[in-house]
């Protein structure tokens, strides 16, 4: 009986998968059997004459003997006085049969040519020869396979949100058959949402009976594969959808994270002073489930004094190091992205920023006919004028762990720049909930030449729209 695995797990419960990660449904069956084997044993060398020609036919492919060694090529063999040599010559001729060499491994052991099928299976072998039986004997054993699904079509019906979506179909070969359902589900994966899916696998087995191979269910959300990250998650307890929890930093006083939870959960944060004193904290019961994107302000004063911000969702915690010196200045820029788990990650660039402008024009020429009649005659005219602004952000000096955060950013497809507005009260630029999509055009993380393990990140991007 076939086994069904999803991402190498038997019957996973509450699994959350990501559309950018291979999600493999595997039908596995321990088929077993034997390879078809043909053995051609040369017992003695018959006398070859020019009148008659000896031949050996295996699976419809025929090899014939020749009298001279120089003609011994292709599908022709020679009968030597030495039976081992004859066997070798026969095996060489058989190997020149394209169909046979596709089906069999062909070799000799002493005076016997062994043709062993490359795969186990129901290979009905036929072999014959007009060489006298006492000279060359042929034994044949058909391949056998004990399998319910070998060579059969496996059908995978996929449903999303309770609606049938598509059927994938493959042929079973060997012991297993795998489907990667990520691409089929990808159109239904949306950020901030767990989209339920359901897959059933069926086949018509080798005896013509419908075989229900099993079902797989779970949820999908956008995400991608990153070194060290989990290719899938279980939605059994509240958890922060951060990528790596090492090297998290924060500069602005706004926290943006996402939480995966099967039910409502407790979310809290606290700002700790370097001595561990809690400078500011808050706890809140969140009633939503699935993926919850959290966005909240932290006291600016606490940020000024604090050294870390701890957050927790249920029992899952993470620590953000507050970047110092904290000027709370208008000079920093926050880049937010959807990380490998589909949750929010952010980085505050506090280094010097810059921008460059570029333009490209395409022109075309008019005719000269109006040259004398039109005082405002233009010969060369502009067809298109494309201008682009490229921005460059630089980080503060980073540790190795902090620098690793950029691996996630480098693969992210949804990246935003947080808009800031002038706050009349604080009389400084403050972050808002508004964001602009940006296109990352370059990201360099460079280790400092002077100080090992100190890195600087430079992000180049352009706005997805100039407006």
């Amino acid at each position, binding site marked *: 009986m076939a086994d069904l695995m999803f991402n190498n797990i038997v019957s996973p419960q509450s699994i959350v998968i990501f559309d950018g990660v291979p999600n493999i449904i595997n039908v596995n069956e321990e088929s077993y059997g034997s390879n078809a084997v043909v053995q051609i044993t040369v017992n003695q060398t018959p006398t070859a004459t020019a009148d008659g020609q000896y*031949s050996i036919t295996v699976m419809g492919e025929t090899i014939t003997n020749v009298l001279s060694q120089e*003609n011994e*090529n292709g599908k022709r063999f020679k009968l030597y006085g030495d039976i081992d040599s004859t066997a070798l010559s026969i095996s060489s001729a058989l190997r*020149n049969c394209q169909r046979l060499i*596709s*089906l069999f491994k062909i070799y000799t052991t002493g005076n016997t040519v062994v043709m062993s099928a490359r795969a186990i299976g129901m290979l009905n072998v036929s072999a014959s020869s007009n060489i006298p039986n006492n000279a060359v004997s042929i034994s044949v054993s058909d391949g056998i396979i004990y399998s319910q699904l070998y060579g059969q079509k496996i059908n995978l019906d996929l449903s999303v949100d309770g609606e049938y979506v598509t059927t994938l*179909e493959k042929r079973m070969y060997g012991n297993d058959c*795998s489907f*990667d359902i990520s*691409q089929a589900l990808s159109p239904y994966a949306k950020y901030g949402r767990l989209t339920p899916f359901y897959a059933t696998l069926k086949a018509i087995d080798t005896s013509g009976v419908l075989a229900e191979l099993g079902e797989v269910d779970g949820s999908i959300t956008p995400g991608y594969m990153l070194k060290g990250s989990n290719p899938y998650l279980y939605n059994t307890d509240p958890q922060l959808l951060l990528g790596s929890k090492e090297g998290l930093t924060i500069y602005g006083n706004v926290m943006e994270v996402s939480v995966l939870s099967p039910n409502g959960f407790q979310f809290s944060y606290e700002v700790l002073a370097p001595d561990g004193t809690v400078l500011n904290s808050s706890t809140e019961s969140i009633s939503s489930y699935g993926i919850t994107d959290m966005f909240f302000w932290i006291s600016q004063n606490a940020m000024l004094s604090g050294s870390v911000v701890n957050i927790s969702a249920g029992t899952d915690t993470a620590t953000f190091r507050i970047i110092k010196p904290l000027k709370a200045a208008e000079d920093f820029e926050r880049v937010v992205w959807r990380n490998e788990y589909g949750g929010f990650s952010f980085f505050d660039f506090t280094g010097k920023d810059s921008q460059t402008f570029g333009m490209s024009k395409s022109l075309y020429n008019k005719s000269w006919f109006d040259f004398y009649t039109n005082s405002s005659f233009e010969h060369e005219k502009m067809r298109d004028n494309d201008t682009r602004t490229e921005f460059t952000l630089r980080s503060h000096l980073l540790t190795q762990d902090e620098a690793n955060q950029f691996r996630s950013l480098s693969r992210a497809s949804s990246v935003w720049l947080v808009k800031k507005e002038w706050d009349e009260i604080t009389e400084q630029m403050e972050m808002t909930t508004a964001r602009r999509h940006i296109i990352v055009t370059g990201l360099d993380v460079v280790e400092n030449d002077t100080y090992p393990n100190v890195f600087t990140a430079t992000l180049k991007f352009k706005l997805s729209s100039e407006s």
Partner: protein
Amino acid sequence: MRDISIYCDGRLLELGTGFTGIRMNNQVFDPTSLRGKQAEYSFTFNVPSTRENNITFGFANVPAQTSKFRRRFDAQVYASGTLIFEGSLVLKSYKDGQYSCNLVSVKVWSNEDIFGEAVLADIPWEVDFSGAPTINEVNADPTKKYAFPLICYGAFSKQPYEKDDVGGYYTPKSTIDKWNQFWYESFYPSMNVLETVKKAYEWKGYQVGGTAFQDPVLSNIYASCKLSSEQVPQYNLGNPKLGRLRLAGTTATSSNTFITQDLSFPYYKVNGWNLVPNPTGQSDYHLESNIKYNFNAVNIWNILDNSTVMQGESYMFDPKTGDRDSENVIVIPADGFYRIYLTVQGGCTQTENFRATQWKITDDGMQEVSMSITPNVKESTPIEIQLVRNYDGNLELIKGCQNVKYLDGDPSVLTYHTKNNRETWFTCFPHQQLYGAEAPTVTSSITDADTTSNARRGVGSTVDITSSDVSESTNTGRGNGGRRGSTGRENERTSATSRTEVRSGTDTIGYVNQPGSLMPYDPVVSPIFICGLSSMNDGTAAVIKDGYSWSKGNSDKNESFSAQNGLKLMTYDRQTQTTSTTQTEFCRDEYPEAPSSYLTCSSFNGRFVGRVACCVWLNRNDVLELLAVQRDYNGKKYTCNISYTLDIMAVSERHKEALKSGVPSSGGRRRAPGVNPYTFTFNSPSEFPEKLNLGNFMSDETKVSDWIDNVCRAFNITTTQSGNLIQLDKTTSTRPLDYSAVELDGKCDANDAELSVIDYPSEMSVRWTINKDEWGFENTVPQEHINDNDWYEWGDSGYTVIKLNDDSYTTSTLNETVPFSYTYWQDFSFEEYDQQGVVSGVSHILTPVIELSQYMCEGYGYEEAMEHDGYSLSQRFFYRPTGTTKSVQLFDHMHETVNLYVPERVYGEVNISYKDSEKSLLTEYFNMMPMLDSNYAKIEVYLNPDEYIQLRGGALAHFDSDLYYTCQISGFDPTGRNLTTLTLMKKT
């Protein structure tokens, strides 16, 4: 990185600087094609010009070397010891010390190169054949690659069950009953198609093998007999059973089974003056010319009607036995020369005078009166034994070398008025008067020569040979005269001119046959005459004249061998009033080693003995009869006893010129022994083959190369050549190997594959060549549509047009037509009889019918229908017959039984059709099961040589945890340095 070794004609190429590596391409399977022919080739690569390479390439680097780029070198390529390619290497160019080369997969040089202009009938395929026993034996032996099935190539030969003045009445054409006439020729051989291909290649010295021969369906397909319109297949007449007849027997002309026939060339002219009342009144009577003949009709017996004994078996004779309406005739099986040796002896039993009514000039004028006839086998009661062909009331006498006239008609009268009552004279040719002589026929002058000579010379007297002073000399200055429009005729006229110049001396009278000489019988007298013996004129043996008739009224050219001395030219000297003869070469002929031909007879006791030996060209289906011919006395007949032997043997299909050329027969024929130069003699063995050449039953117009190409197209067989070995492989690429797959998932990411559509044409089909006028096709049209204007649209053409693509922008179609026909079958009723000949049951026979509808419909006359056949209609296929439950008796003297083997329509559920509604050639051997739900996936992988040869051989690709067919391998680098692009097709 693997090392590469290239062997070229067994020599290792030096691949040094300049070798650019090899990239192999292989078209494994094209799903959009009806066929999946493999093609393997390489990109161009360079090989340096080194001393060894120059030798290997035959110094192709030398400008003066010719044909340098026309050679193909046997090539093998090894990658790290694994043979990855075997085929041909071709040179493309030479420049800067580098040879540009390509590797191409082995292919047959075009069949046209192999077979040239050879036609199917040229293929030698000789088998033993002795008629019905062979037919039964071969049909029952499934190992034989030919068979003699019952196939309807037209209305089966049949006798009428009733005849009246209107004609014969026949049982239905769709019924096989006791009225049918089957001969061994009714069962033409059908050859195994692949075996025929094999024989053709073997004929040209090739060995043949391949997967097609192991395929149970393809190897069991047989072809119908397809002949050109005028082609008549020849049997192995060197087998005495088929080509020789030896009969002996006795008969007496006493029975009443004779027929009486008037002669066009009568005898015994009564040419006196008839006294009639004088219209002028000056006297009571005056004389008026009146001509009658007393020998103007004959009684004819078929000698073979009586107690005939056959030595050995022969299909050439069809004697009347039992209640069968046989004809007791000899049927000639094929065109050719037949050696004939006829001996007779016997005697006239009539010894007493008898009275008979004859014309006689009496005082009352010409009257029929009863007169006493004295028996005389030489004159009054003669006997002739004639072997004739295709008798149609047109027999004439041999008569001999002289004519006889009784002036008053009564042979017993010696003197008529002042003249001898009996006059005799030579005939210038048998039955023909000498120049100026009175015409012996009821017609006027029968030759141009007569008219010319009469006008020329005006010699009016007859020549009494009894008073002639015959002297002999030899005239070798004359060619064969008498041929109309021929050189001989011109020569004769030229001679006549010269004769005019010397007419003051002598007059040429004509060519005469001498008593006792074998007489050349002019076909203008009787076209049916072959040879014979006559007791008249002291006994005469005669053989049909070789060459053209003397008369321009007959344009037939006969060919014969016989011991002819040549005629003598008779001249008349007016001064001495004597005649003389000169031996000429005219009508001289030789038949070395032939027994002398003669007939001697005795007027005393009427005994006669004689023989005639000759060799005569006869035509297929000539019906020969051995006839006893006697003078008819107005119903009064006399009796002769006759013993005879007759030996007829087919000896050669070569014409006389070839047989006399001194060149022995060659080719597939039996070589006549003898010294060089070869002399054709009476004792020369038959040149007809002793074995049946099945090639004779194949078209003598269809080129072998075309036919093989078309067979390969019809069955989608791939032909490749490797050295002397021809491989005929069924196209396996349409059925890739499901048992093994090359693992590619470890070599590439499915997400990197380029997926694309398979551009199928809008429709695909393989079509037969259908003749809508065929009976079989018409029979498939439902009756309710038979009168529609588009009735033929309703017929079964044996193929299906498969619609693949409804996209309006796809306009391409893939339809192929093979020049063979779909096989149409007809259900024949087969009547079985009990011992009393009463119908005891009716069963059915389903067999192919190959004939036009007009001849097979019941409304068309049976006799006319039997004159047509469908051998020239398109060839078609069926499976070998497997068993028999019915039999028929052949219509020959041996009554041999032939067990009826009827072709099979289905083998292993596979029909020989191109329909997709059944298991067919289409579904089994063509790529007509398109996977419309599939697609191409193009990927790039690094392949090792073992994987390459597996994929090339048809192994599946295991890719994306799924199975894919390999369609194309592009750029395989045996060294492993470059990626190979694979075009795969998802197996759905």
